[in-house]
């Protein structure tokens, strides 16, 4: 399954929007926090987990999803939210803790819900897998042609929730796909020191589902493998597990000194950044004209600027609003 020219350009646009978004969020995040980094200060308090480098995973998978399809994402969710079509202005307002945010500022960056596109994220490793299996069960029971996708990191494959949920998915043959973004680090501990197998796709055998490993963060390979798995799930052929080798170009959290990385690693993964590589390949293979690519980039930067401006202009919530929405 090869993406055609317009699909490639669409994926590139999602990826570049996400990258520009993360750059803009990083800039806003550091406002008021320096010179002595204090996480509580500035317009965006709290932890921040940026996804720069991991955009192909989201763009390649979500290219196959509709608004009705369900996605659960992680603490590092911005690229997935953008690829799934979450309302970027309300999402940004949420990240800034403003009244116009997706939950009116109750959740923040780690708790993004947009029910219009069936998207949720959460802050606990491995927590979103079972809800996605349950969403898939709902689609199966109601005879709907939708699929549910759980995005997780490679660290989550060592959580009990991963094993329980994939066993249920394999047992019930629900329309579910688990995407593992293997950025090779659970915070500071690399995969070799945390995981008994070098690649998690082999674990799929334990749940009676196909397992696929994609090397090198390649958007086209991700598009192809995800397309096959999602199509199979949609047609009642059951779940799949896909692990993608990807690269986290920033720290685990914004402000992470990254002292755990071996010397030279940052430079080497930066050279493998999928964004410029995809751009070059599209030009070289005549997939898109430079003008079209630049137009996509310009449009992305306008989208991001609008979202940030929307968030900054939105008022802060009234303090006592905190008391609402515990129950509906």
């Amino acid at each position, binding site marked *: 399954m090869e993406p055609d020219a317009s699909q490639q350009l669409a994926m590139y646009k999602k990826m570049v929007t996400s990258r520009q978004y993360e750059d803009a969020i990083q800039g806003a995040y550091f406002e008021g926090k320096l010179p002595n980094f204090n996480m509580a200060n500035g317009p965006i308090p709290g932890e921040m987990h940026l996804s720069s480098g991991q955009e192909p995973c989201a763009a390649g998978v979500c290219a196959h999803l509709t608004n009705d399809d369900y996605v659960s994402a992680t603490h590092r969710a911005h690229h997935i939210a953008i690829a799934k079509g979450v309302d970027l202005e309300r999402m940004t307002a949420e990240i800034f803790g403003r009244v116009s945010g997706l939950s009116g500022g*109750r959740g923040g960056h780690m*708790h993004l819900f947009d029910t219009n596109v069936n998207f949720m994220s959460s802050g606990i490793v491995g927590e979103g897998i079972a809800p996605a299996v*349950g969403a898939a069960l709902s*689609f199966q029971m109601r005879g709907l042609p939708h699929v549910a996708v759980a995005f997780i990191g490679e660290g989550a494959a060592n959580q009990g929730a991963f094993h329980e949920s994939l066993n249920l998915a394999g047992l019930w043959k629900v329309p579910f796909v688990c995407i593992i973004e293997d950025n090779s680090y659970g915070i500071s501990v690399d995969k070799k020191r945390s995981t008994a197998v070098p690649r998690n796709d082999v674990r799929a055998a334990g749940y009676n589902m196909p397992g696929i490993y994609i090397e090198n963060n390649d958007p086209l390979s991700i598009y192809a493998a995800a397309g096959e798995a999602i199509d199979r799930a949609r047609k009642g052929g059951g779940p799949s597990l896909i692990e993608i080798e990807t690269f986290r170009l920033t720290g685990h959290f914004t402000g992470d000194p990254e002292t755990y990385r071996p010397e030279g690693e940052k430079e080497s993964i930066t050279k493998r950044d999928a964004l410029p590589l995809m751009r070059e390949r599209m030009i070289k293979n005549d997939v898109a004209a430079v003008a079209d690519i630049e137009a996509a980039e310009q449009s992305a930067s306008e989208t991001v600027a609008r979202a940030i401006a929307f968030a900054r202009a939105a008022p802060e919530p009234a303090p006592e609003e905190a008391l609402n929405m515990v*129950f509906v």
Partner: protein
Amino acid sequence: MTKTTNARKLTISKAMAEALGEAMDSDERVFLMGEDIGKLGGAFGNTAGLYDRFGAKRVRDTPISETGFIGAAVGAAACGMRPVVELMFVDFFGVCMDAIYNLAAKNAYFSGGAQPVPMVLMSAIGGGYGDAGQHSQTLYGTFAHLPGMKVVAPSNAYDAKGLMHAAIKDDNPVIYLFHKALHGLAWLGTTPGSITHTPAEPYEVPLGKAAVLREGSDVTIVGLSWPVHLALAAAEDLAGQGVSAEVIDLRSLVPLDKECVLNSVRKTGRLVVVDDDYQSFGVTGEIIAIAANEAFGSLKAAPQRVAHPDIPVPFARPMEQFALPNKDKIVASVHATL
């Protein structure tokens, strides 16, 4: 309660199964998940007969994977279903609490109300039959302490059926705790007062409404679930001693019917709270704090409490009976307020 000439008495177990069957008949979105709930009909009989009526898809036996199937219920509830899941013993919450208190309880809040989680988690509570400290807890206070979940615990079959219907119709997650000492299973024994008239048709007992089970003027005894029956027995003894006790069944901890408790305390001026959960930082302390805050001027004596001491539920019969609340402890506590 409904008046009828032909009392139709059910156990709590049968009342729960009847409510579940009625809810599944009237709403296709309702389905059940849990361990041994299919052909076996549930470890406590709550789904008896439902597998044959509704089939394996809607009465879904799960592997022993509480994190998996309770988390799945959250996702199914987000996508148009109304799941009822059974956590066999409440003590097992330790293996799946994240799905309960971080997902089910918080998704509505984190979505600004856009993503309700209409699910019911039913679970067996309580000891008294020598099952030791991992199969005998009640943990009402733990669930009620954590925001985002409604918490109910019926003391009789009428309430069990009506609360189940109300819980399934509610758009919020409801923790439904049924007590093994009241359940009406031959192998567990049962408190006779839990077997009550139960109308054959569907009805709701609203969440958050307490019931005054016995009116009195000298002291208010507040409890829920099994301890309510101990309170009623104590009230009977006290009547013989010339003490008029009012007995309140909270039925629901979240929402809590504060007004019912406060109205009674303002009338009697004395309060005893009974609970088979751990004493410290729990239900008894909360009810007494509410009375102290909002009816202090009415109190004629320091409120008293009878609860499980802060120890794991012990196995040996003399030790377990020592730890559990009983009628005599309640009577003694009432006397301490007089």
